[in-house]
């Protein structure tokens, strides 16, 4: 099954990338952009056919490796 894990910085954590991109967009002539946040997306092919089990396994993977819970939150979607 295909799984998508999205990892974003926690609210309130400085996001230097987002800041720099929003700044660049302004000067590029896209003035309407107010906030930018940058995160990672990790797409996985996981063996198995039980949606709940795959979801659980992906959450474990996110906690153990894919996200840094000190500064990041994650979201798991089984596609």
């Amino acid at each position, binding site marked *: 099954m295909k799984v998508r894990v999205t990892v974003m910085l926690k609210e309130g954590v400085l996001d230097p990338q987002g800041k*720099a*991109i929003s700044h660049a967009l302004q000067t590029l002539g896209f003035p309407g952009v107010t906030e930018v946040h940058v995160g990672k997306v990790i797409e996985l092919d996981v063996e198995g056919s039980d949606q709940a089990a795959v979801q659980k396994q992906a959450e474990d993977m996110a906690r153990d490796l894919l996200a840094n819970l000190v500064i990041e939150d994650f979201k798991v979607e089984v596609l």
Partner: protein
Amino acid sequence: MKSAIVVFPGTNRERDMAIALKRVTGKAPTMLWHRDTDLPDVDLVVLPGGFSYGDYLRCGAMAAHSPIMAAIRAFAQKGGHILGVCNGFQILTETGMLPGALLRNANLRFLSQDCHLRVERNDTPFTHKWAKDAVFRTPLAHGDGNYTADSQTLEKLEGEGLVAFRYANAKGDVQADDAETNPNGSINSIAGILSENTRICGMMPHPEDLVDPLMGGEDGLPLFEGLVEAFVR
């Protein structure tokens, strides 16, 4: 030779480049700011190394949209000479002035070490002080130097002889799947390429950091001496 160096926010090897250029021309290059919209009358424009805009998003992506890049594009169209080193190379690929792209190093780490480059042709202003197939040592320092291009582009580069430098061992042997000699994993061990008219050169390593015996050698000097000879005026 009259030369200019472009400084973007986050550029950090402009001083190294200025030292190298001054060493061969006897005069300090003009420093340009990324917001400038005109170029002075120069023979060579250099995009130096660093982390323009922090290299956030992608290396060189935001600098490629700086105001000065329009003037640099026009300069290129008129046949001007441009050297892009490290971040400068990344910026040139991001603008499309050179083909391909630079990905994360294959081992996913920043690399700071010496490497050896083999000179693939010596009939360009950038390479003519070396013999063809000469090998020289130079430092490299980057996290995203893994050159890639689609097969069509690659065929063209190789077919038209637009590869300027390849990573090699000290004897000049090239082996793309060997992490020792091709440290960042570049396709075909490509370290530097040329535009079709051979007037734009982009390369990842830093010959400008090896132009003084005190800093460990002058192996990078021929690049700069060659440029000066190409523009005697």
